[in-house]
């Protein structure tokens, strides 16, 4: 029986044919991009709507055909062959070129949108104009560079999401999670906000993406945005209240039960792009201890930065817009001080055992400094609660963090530093959720007794640069603030060692775990020895 099958299986199924199909797929995708390039170069294409549809569909079709050819004609399983050989995915020439292209694209979109054809006075040209009909259809306005960006972003998540699903089609966690990020991008980030703004054409802009909460959306509490929300009728008021509920109620509850993954790898748009289009670059994250140290400083500094910026902005808003204000400056200063004191006090009194000494030290001293500055300035009647003009703080934040870090470096450097640079080193939302995940959550990655062979597939696949193996080979649970719960470490493990779980908080952090194997309680022996 077996020998009969043999004759057909002496070579791998049609290698050359497959590669022609792959080439065709890439070709179709590139034609789509080429049409967009023509539009960018201000070529006046007739029937803009149809050409745009052709361009976007070609891109999607290209990726879909590519994924089909790549994955569907072979058995389901881990597909990482050649990952570190291919130029694109191993920081080769293609990787560098793509990094530079993406970075340039982000620089233009943030600071020189006129090069893309944005012209609010005389009407758009170039690629922005190319998207005008589609934009009018959805939201009733001419397109902006952000509409172009949002559309392409959504196309990327949808098409590469499809590819990701095929790649991990043997793993239901991956399938469900990817459908979730695709849905939240398409509906919550893209369609619903556009349609809502079409329904309320007279209202000034305010954020309508329900899932994009502060501090990821750093302008949520800026004066202009607060004004627009408050002037925005029922919808504005709803967005304001829901936004606040997200921060203080919904997100802490979900993070308690499921860890930060409910947001970072299931809902968030930045995470969505990283998980889909960025999947091919996940292994490029730096796994060294040095990088981890840097990460802990940088992400928490961004958190402090966004916190003081926001407090300063609200403080000055309350001073200059008494008519909009529900609370006075005085009340606000007290609320913020008490909030800060409670958060840091709780962490210090209940959780300091779970934190490194230097982290506790830094946290407490930063807290004391922030509190004293805040109260000092408040009581001396200064306009600026943190010394600097609030508009200056927020323009620095917007430039350095909102644009340069999250966009230019965050996505532009995908092929060089991995897909989660922003999420790991910069995102203040991830910092808050991470702190909670580390200290108040049921989520952990459980390791399976003694089955680890230290191969390193888990660490290699970790987009957040966690050295997963360091825990697995000791039989320790992985409870790290940065873990976004993507589950790829578990998927690529050849020995079934890792499982993402929500369970009892007790014993969740088990840094003195003992590997199964020897029939003796090594732990007791070690303890006696100590």
């Amino acid at each position: 029986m077996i020998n009969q099958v043999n004759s057909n299986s002496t070579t791998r199924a049609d290698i050359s044919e497959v590669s022609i199909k792959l080439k065709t797929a890439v070709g179709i995708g590139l034609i789509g991009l080429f049409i967009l390039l023509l539009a960018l170069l201000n070529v006046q294409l007739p029937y803009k709507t149809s050409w745009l549809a052709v361009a976007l569909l070609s891109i999607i079709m290209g990726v879909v055909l590519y994924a089909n050819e790549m994955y569907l004609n072979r058995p389901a399983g881990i597909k990482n062959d050649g990952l570190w050989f291919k130029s694109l995915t191993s920081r080769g020439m293609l990787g560098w070129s793509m990094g530079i292209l993406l970075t340039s694209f982000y620089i233009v979109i943030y600071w020189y949108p006129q090069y893309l054809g944005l012209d609010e006075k005389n009407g758009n040209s170039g690629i922005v104009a190319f998207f005008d009909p589609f934009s009018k259809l959805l939201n009733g306005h001419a397109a902006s560079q952000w509409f172009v960006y949002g559309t392409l972003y959504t196309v990327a998540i949808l098409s590469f999401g499809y590819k990701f699903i095929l790649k991990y089609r043997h793993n239901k966690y991956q399938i469900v999670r990817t459908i979730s990020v695709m849905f939240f991008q398409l509906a919550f980030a893209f369609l619903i906000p556009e349609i809502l703004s079409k329904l309320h054409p007279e209202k000034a802009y305010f954020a309508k993406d329900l899932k994009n909460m502060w501090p990821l959306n750093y302008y949520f509490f800026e004066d202009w945005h607060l004004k627009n929300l408050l002037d925005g009728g029922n919808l504005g008021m709803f967005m304001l209240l829901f936004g606040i509920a997200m921060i203080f109620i919904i997100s802490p509850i979900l993070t308690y039960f499921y860890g930060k993954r409910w947001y970072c790898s299931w809902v968030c748009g930045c995470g969505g792009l990283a998980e889909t289009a960025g999947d091919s670059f996940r292994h490029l994250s730096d796994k060294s201890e040095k990088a981890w140290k840097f990460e802990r400083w940088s992400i928490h500094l961004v958190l402090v930065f966004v916190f003081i910026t926001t407090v300063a902005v609200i403080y000055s808003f309350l001073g200059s817009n008494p008519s909009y204000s529900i609370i006075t400056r005085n009340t606000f200063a007290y609320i913020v001080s008490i909030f800060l004191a409670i958060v840091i006090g709780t962490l210090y009194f209940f959780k300091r055992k779970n934190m490194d000494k230097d982290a506790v030290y830094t946290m407490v001293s930063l807290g004391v400094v922030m509190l004293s500055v805040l109260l000092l300035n408040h009581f001396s009647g200064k306009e600026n609660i943190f010394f600097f003009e609030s508009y200056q703080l927020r323009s620095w934040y917007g430039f350095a963090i909102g644009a340069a870090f999250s966009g230019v470096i965050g996505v532009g450097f995908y092929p060089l530093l991995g897909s989660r640079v922003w999420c790991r080193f910069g995102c203040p939302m991830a910092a808050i959720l991470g702190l909670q995940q580390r200290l108040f959550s049921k989520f952990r990655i459980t390791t399976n007794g003694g089955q680890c062979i230290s191969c390193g597939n888990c660490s290699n696949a970790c987009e957040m640069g966690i050295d997963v193996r360091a825990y697995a080979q000791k039989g320790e649970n992985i409870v790290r603030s940065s873990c976004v719960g993507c589950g790829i470490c578990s998927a690529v493990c050849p020995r079934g060692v890792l499982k993402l779980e929500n369970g009892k908080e007790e014993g969740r952090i088990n840094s003195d775990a003992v590997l199964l194997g020897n029939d003796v309680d090594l732990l007791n022996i070690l303890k006696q020895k100590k």
Partner: protein
Amino acid sequence: MNHIVIIGNGIAGVTAARHIRKISAHKITIVSAEADYFFSRTALMYVYMGHMKFEHTQPYENNFWSKNKIDLIKDFVSHVDVENKRLHLSVGETIRYDSLIIATGSKPNKFGWPGQDLDGVTGLYHKQDLEYIEKYTLGCKRAVVVGGGLIGIELTEMLMSRNIPVTFLVREKSFWDMVLPQGESEMINRHILEHGIDLKLETGLKEILADENGRAKAVVTDKGETIACGIVGLTAGVSPNIDFLKGSGIEIARGVKVNRFLETNIKNIYAIGDCAEQHEGIGNRRPIEAVWYTGRMMGETVARNICGIPMKYNPGNWFNSAKFFDIEYQTYGWVWATPKENEEQFYWEHASKNICIRIAFEKYSRLFLGVNVFGIRVRHEIFDRILTDKRTVDYVIDNFDKVNFDPEFSTTYNNEIKDAFNQFIHTAKLIQL
């Protein structure tokens, strides 16, 4: 403070070094000719396949060793002078030791096949083998892999990842059938074919033919077939890598003979890992166990013995795991390829997917003896407890939902397995408990 020298920087030697460091301040030196730093041997395949780079197989950062005061010497030990407690190295000067741990692992078996030492013929064990394979697969049109075990199928998977067609010669009736029962073994046969491999069962190697440059150009099977190929993988098992100990006075047989304290016949010399041979097998285990996990466990044990806290090597319940292309395999306890007289085996296989489970138990007492799972992940900790607590097969079936370790949302087959088990008990006319 004694000087403890460890020959070999694999999992056994390195675990010993780490655990000695945990509980003592002895001077520790590791000598290895293979690599600068400890790496995971089992991950070599992923380097060739491009999943990882070689440095990713190193579980500790390079400064780990100096930070923990573990000295590393890259050299080959040519001779052990047990009288003067000295190691003679190929390149460097001699090293004096107070205690010596031999952890030199294995080397691939060769059974005297004609042509087995030709260019382009390789095993898969050392880092150097990988470099060799890399060199000889360049432009290779076909590969032949000989030997139907874990390393053979890994080498096959590696070569296929580079689009090199592979002929896989397996001497046995079915893949790895001295370990795997028929159901599992045949599932793996089918999976091997599904991956487009030319699997030739019940076919052995007769000889390897050379071209004019002394490079392997074809193999001749014992069925008389000649298969042209650019590289030949010999993966018919491994044996202890201890040639350098001949004549040293250290007692060797197939491996280095050790007692339960992992001591050799010479005081202060120990042997651990693949190269150690127990005087008699512990429980159902073989005297030589070339498995990652036992290497690690012996390392943990020898560290305590050297640090004056005597402890017998006492491996607990048997476990192992592997991956055959896309199919993960875990086993706990003992499941023999052919059940012993007092044993019964329950087997369930998914109708279309590569998923199956086999549970071995005692026919009359229903004592659970062991389990093979393919395509289902289970919890080590729970099966370990079940074995220690001597639970029945019925307990295992009833609690199968608790042992699952698959990713969230995975389809589980607890009910199917339970139904199949009840059916099995019924038809096998065993007592319904």
